[in-house]
């Protein structure tokens, strides 16, 4: 990247922060800087207040989120009371699958207190990916690895106490 002129000392710049956050996510970590810059540029910041939903269970969503500051609750609420799945915080990247295709949300995500996140829309993402077709295999690889990693960790954590859930395991075999 070109250096800044002498009259432009470094000032915190949203684009650079976005860049730093995105390059730490599983989806973008292997991207060359040239294309990563475009994705960082296309991401927009959104500020949410306590209780605001980023997305809701059952909704079709077409964007991914990367949390810049603050926290959010991942919730699951079928007919019964809403259950907390876990909390997510700065640096977490959520909902990336929605960038690749229609994703019906199976959970809800709500802000806890003030929070800021980068929002990347599918339309922008796919337009940008078209510009860097070489990156497509990398994206698929990243998703595959993430799914397998996830289930691997899940299995380790599961230990012996699964009970009736065994027949439903195997999302990494999709």
């Amino acid at each position, binding site marked *: 990247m070109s250096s800044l002129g002498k009259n*432009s000392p470094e000032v915190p710049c949203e*684009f650079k922060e976005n860049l730093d956050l995105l390059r730490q996510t599983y989806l973008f970590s292997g991207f060359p800087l040239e294309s990563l810059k475009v994705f960082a540029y296309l991401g927009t910041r959104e500020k949410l207040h306590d209780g*605001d939903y980023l997305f809701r269970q059952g909704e079709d969503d077409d964007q991914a989120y990367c949390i810049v500051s603050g926290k959010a609750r991942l919730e699951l609420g079928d007919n019964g009371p809403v259950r907390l799945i876990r909390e997510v915080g700065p640096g977490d990247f959520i909902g990336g699958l929605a960038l690749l295709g229609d994703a019906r949300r199976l959970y809800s995500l709500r802000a806890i207190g003030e929070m800021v996140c980068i*929002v990347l829309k599918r*339309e922008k993402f796919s337009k940008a990916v078209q510009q860097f*077709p070489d990156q497509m295999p990398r994206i698929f690889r990243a998703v595959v690895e993430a799914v397998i990693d996830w289930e691997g960790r899940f299995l380790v954590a599961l230990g012996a106490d699964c009970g009736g859930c065994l027949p439903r395991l195997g999302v990494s075999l999709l």
Partner: protein
Amino acid sequence: MEKAKQPIVRRSLFSWVLDGNLGWQLSLLAVIAVVVFARVLPLEMQKRIVNQAITLRDLDLLLLYCGFYLAAVLLANACKYAINILETLIAQRVLKRMRSALYDHILSLPLSFFRNTQPGTVVNSIAIELVAPSNFAGSAVSTPVANILTLLAFAGYLFWLNPLLAAVSLSIYPVAMIAIPLLQRRANIANQKRVDLSRTFAGRIAESIGGMHEIHGHAAHRIERRKFDRLAEELKKIRIVWSLYRFAVKTTNNLFTGLGPFLVFLMGGYLTIRGELELGALVAFLSAQEKLYDPWKELIEFYQVYQDGAVTYRRTMEFFDVEPEHEREPGDRAPLALDAHLEVKHLSIATGSGIRLLDDVNLELKPGEHLALVGFSGSGKSTLALCIGQLASYGEGQVMIGSQEVARLTKQDIAANVGIVFQSPFIFEGSIAENLLYACDALADERAPTARPSLDDIIAVLHQTGLFADVLKFGLNTVLRAGTHPELARAIIRVRHKFQERYGGKFRDAVEFFEESSYLVYSSVADNLIFGAANREEFTPARISRNDYFIAFLNKEGLHQTLLDIGANLARQTVDILGNLPPDAVFFEQSPIAAEDLPRYKSVLEQLRRRKGGELSPQASSSLLDLALRFTPGVHKMAAMEPEVQRILLEKRIRFRAEVSEDIPGAFTFYNAQEYIHSQTILNNIVFGNLTTASTQAQDLITQNIIQLLIERDLLETVIDIGMNYNVGPQGEKLSGGQRQKLVIARAFLKSPRMLIMDEATSALDNRSQARIQNLLETRWKRRSTLVAVVHRLDIIRNFDKIAVMKAGKIIESGPYAELIDRKGALYELVGKK
């Protein structure tokens, strides 16, 4: 039905010559008669000057004959000019009519024709290839008549002077008339190839331009260059061959005509020496003989124009000689009002290679019934829908609407009864209103103009389809030019006060108010400095960076260099991120540099790099200043703005206002809660600030409150009306996918058709909008219009009267939803999979 007249593609080239130009051609002939006389007269004068005036030493006679000579030359030239004008007029009239007629013909060609034809080919044919034939038509009467007459007149004069000499000197022309066509035939063959190749060439260029993202994406520039070069090389060769033959025709002709004087000198000299011919007569004969050359040359040139024109014309017309599948208009009757009873019987379509796209499809829908076509992609759903809408031709079987065979109806009959919404809608450049009324306007030509929907109808449809919020947004985002809507502007100020009073505090987070003491992150640097709207052209944002007064102010306050640095940094960052991306709105909506300006800023940066602190060219520094003045940190996130700079700019804001108010009173209207700001959108005028949130939820909340205020003041319709004039850009590029789809659905609904065909018409809509449309179909259109809907998402088909499941071109089961699910057949399986 009355048989339409000969289609344009079968018309002969000659039919254009007189058709509609008779008057012009006759006036041309009148001028020609004069010109022939004026061309022959000087010859006689020439003879008399030598034989009479000079021989008799009669000065008066000399002056008289010279006078006649001069008058004849002047007249001949004036007439020649008039002929040129008339020929041009006729040629241009013919060109325009040929183009219109051909375009009209192309518009009615079946869709299948366009699947195999590149747009560039059509453009090339209409824009370029028709020029040569029309040029021929312009001169088709005048040139041969004028030149043959002149030729005959000269020839007659020559015979009158000396029959023997005349016969000898004219003997070369028959020889030329045999030799030249032989060469011309070769030229024609080359020209034919050239026309075909040009068409391919144009098509190939258009194709490459259309696939530019693929070329960039694969860095395939070299492959494309090679493909292009191959064609260009071929075209070069064929053009050279063509030109060589054309010049060969010319050279041969020149050779023959050059021989003329040679024969006259030989023969005439001999006769004069023998005393059988006067010297004056020989001079006259020689001049007349030389004069033969001009009309002859023109005739030969005309012959070439004719041959080239005829070949080009034939080749072009042959290419488009495809029969339209349907009559466009019913002609002598009004479009039929069909009973929306649909029957499809034994419908089959097979491709050339024998694949059956549709295979013995049968179905029946009573008026007002709704049918959902489901199945995997490629099962024939869309093809069936297209057949019903007369957009695909079918080989076997019948499609009947109200007991009329669809294939035999005219396009107007279908349009008057059927509304079609395609899967990937195409929106034309123009306003929302134009696109919305596209279908109605197309019919209104034929039907009574009262068929146009009223504003109330339009607004109702906007609400139904959910487009209302979008149109309102376009309206609210409009910048009203000073003087265009004075009443609205005044009313908006009252709305502004109400908004402040009611919600001012509530939206602190989402709005950056126009406060004099704070730097506006969502306004440009120029707006921050000036903090007002220009009342004079030279101070408008587009020109402020070149305004001497403003630049002098910047220099005096020591801001100029600071701004150039900001501009340079911003240019560097923007070029770094966007430098190699295509000009897509997605990439450039947050960019301070428009796609078309990128090259300019790249070269400015190059200059900066090379000069290393030296002086920039005035253009470069003006570009950087312009960029800096546009810098809006809230939008252009690739660079940050230092708080120190913000503080300085705030200081200078106060100084600028003080100075400019004194120096040029009235140049600006400064932001003031009592005045309308004509440089800002209606929305910004109402909130008296900039929206700072990207969150749609927050924006919707503000819009909701504004709608409330607009309704209270009875302004909503006015703003909607302004929004309806929003220009959607070429191919509707300024609309989102969802907005386009809503627009075409609204367009179909607005026509109130008896029959609706929707091909995955809601696939680009979000859940809420999709549910809204589905609900609308069930409550408003059921039993009113017959609906055939190709549906991809199976969660919306429950309430259709009938479901037809398609597989490999066949309907494998059909019936009401519950029945099919109970049957546990194909639909049950499909639903289970989803």
